[in-house]
């Protein structure tokens, strides 16, 4: 479980996050949604310590992460897996090398055990026969899957995903979303996903938090979203033509 307690973040004089107070639950896919520039990525980076919070606390279970020293944070971060928007795979390593990296760095496993674990993770994300390819030689969807495999290599307790399906076609995006959901349940991870993709929200959103202009405007489950009265959330959710059609259909069903 991760708790954000009155988290504020300012850059110079610009307030990007204002009093974010929420709890992300274990074993669930927690989604942070909002428009581009609403502060989602900044919140995620505050939670993993890539940005320092201006005020407030980030609690990892009972540990106050924002109060830890750099050394203590490094230890805590070994429990974290993160999938970046662009994959952030290491150019200097092959697919296998990327998944092996955390194992080489932080375990005392034998070479054989590390290879077994890397291959297990790659198989888990349905990647076969790509071990010796470099990130530039595989597709965007495959890069995301390698990033997931790398993120789960050390059995993390917390999984952070920054727009994991951005730039992917709807089918591949769905596969990635389902994979993250499956892994969350399988390993009982606290998963936090930044997205502005409503398909993801409806597919895997156990808990959804809507951020607008750096403030928490709404939170609930994916089933509550369509019935919300929050004007900004409605504007966001029903922004696309497809969503408008769904809304009409939903209203028609309710009337019946």
């Amino acid at each position, binding site marked *: 479980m991760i708790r954000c307690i009155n988290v504020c973040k300012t850059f110079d004089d610009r307030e990007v996050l204002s009093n974010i107070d929420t709890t992300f639950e274990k074993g669930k896919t927690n989604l942070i949604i909002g428009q581009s520039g609403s502060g989602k990525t900044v919140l995620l980076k505050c939670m993993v310590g890539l940005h320092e919070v201006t005020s407030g606390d980030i609690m990892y279970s009972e540990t106050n992460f924002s109060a830890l020293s750099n050394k203590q944070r*490094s*230890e805590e*971060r070994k429990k*974290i897996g*993160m999938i*970046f928007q662009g994959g*952030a795979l290491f150019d200097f390593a092959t697919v296998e090398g990327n998944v092996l990296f955390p194992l080489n*760095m932080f375990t005392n496993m034998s070479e054989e055990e590390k290879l077994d674990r890397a291959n297990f993770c790659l198989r888990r994300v349905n990647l076969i026969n790509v071990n010796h390819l470099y990130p530039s030689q595989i597709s965007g969807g495959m890069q995301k899957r390698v990033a997931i495999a790398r993120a789960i290599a050390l059995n993390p307790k917390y999984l952070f995903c920054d727009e994991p399906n951005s730039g992917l076609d709807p089918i591949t995006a769905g596969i990635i979303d389902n994979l993250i959901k499956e892994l969350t349940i399988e390993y009982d991870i606290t998963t936090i996903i930044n997205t502005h993709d409503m398909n993801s929200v409806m597919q895997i959103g156990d808990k959804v938090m809507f951020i607008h202009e750096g403030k928490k405007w709404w939170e609930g489950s994916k089933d509550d979203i369509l019935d919300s009265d929050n004007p900004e959330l409605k504007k966001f959710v029903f922004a696309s033509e497809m969503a408008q059609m769904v809304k009409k259909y939903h209203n028609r069903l309710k009337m019946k």
Partner: protein
Amino acid sequence: MNFFASIGKYTLFIHRVFSKPEKWSIYYSRTIIEIEKLGINSIGIVLIISVFMGAVITLQTAYNTTSPLLPTYIIGVAARDSILLEFSSTIVALILAGKVGSNISSEIGTMRITEQIDALEIMGVNSAGFLVMPKIIGAMFFFPVLTILSMVIGIFGGWLVGEFTGVITTMEYIKGIQWGFIPFYVTYSLVKSVIFAFIITSVAAFHGYHVKGGSLEVGKASTKAVVVSSILVLLFNLVITQLLLK
């Protein structure tokens, strides 16, 4: 003020770079890779430049020492001392500041903007140490080798052009390069190359590591890294010369 802020930031960066590694064996293998990337892959350019510079120094000395009072072997002496004292360490360092410096800065800068450095940090890896320490150590280890190669090839280039154009005979050239030889000049040159290696790699890495923005900023950081490290090489050349040769 900005200057002092940069010095402070650079000092903190170097402190992080030389923090205790998470795993020595991985840093060791990265250092070997960096020796190949930064050192062995620079042998070609160093050899080409050295042979031509040795040749040009010999020709220029020959055409400017026309006095019958000066013995011909003085051409060999001048070529040797120019190569040993200045060319093989400083000029080669300036060339490497361009080649190696821009390479390091753009590599690390690209890793920064593609969030690879963030990914390292999230894993609990000291990204500055992991990425930069092997480069600095690799360069400090191999630049002296390049300097020695440059000395040998520069002197060879001088002999080659002397023989080819007839400005000096082989015997006189060999006499010249042996005459009044001070072995400390080699030590002085090697000391300089180690310090220049540190300056070039650390300054380039510093600029790459702190890139903010996109590919345009990576390019700007590379240019800045080359300019700053070149100026620092010249400045430290002056300081070291005063300290070691006075």
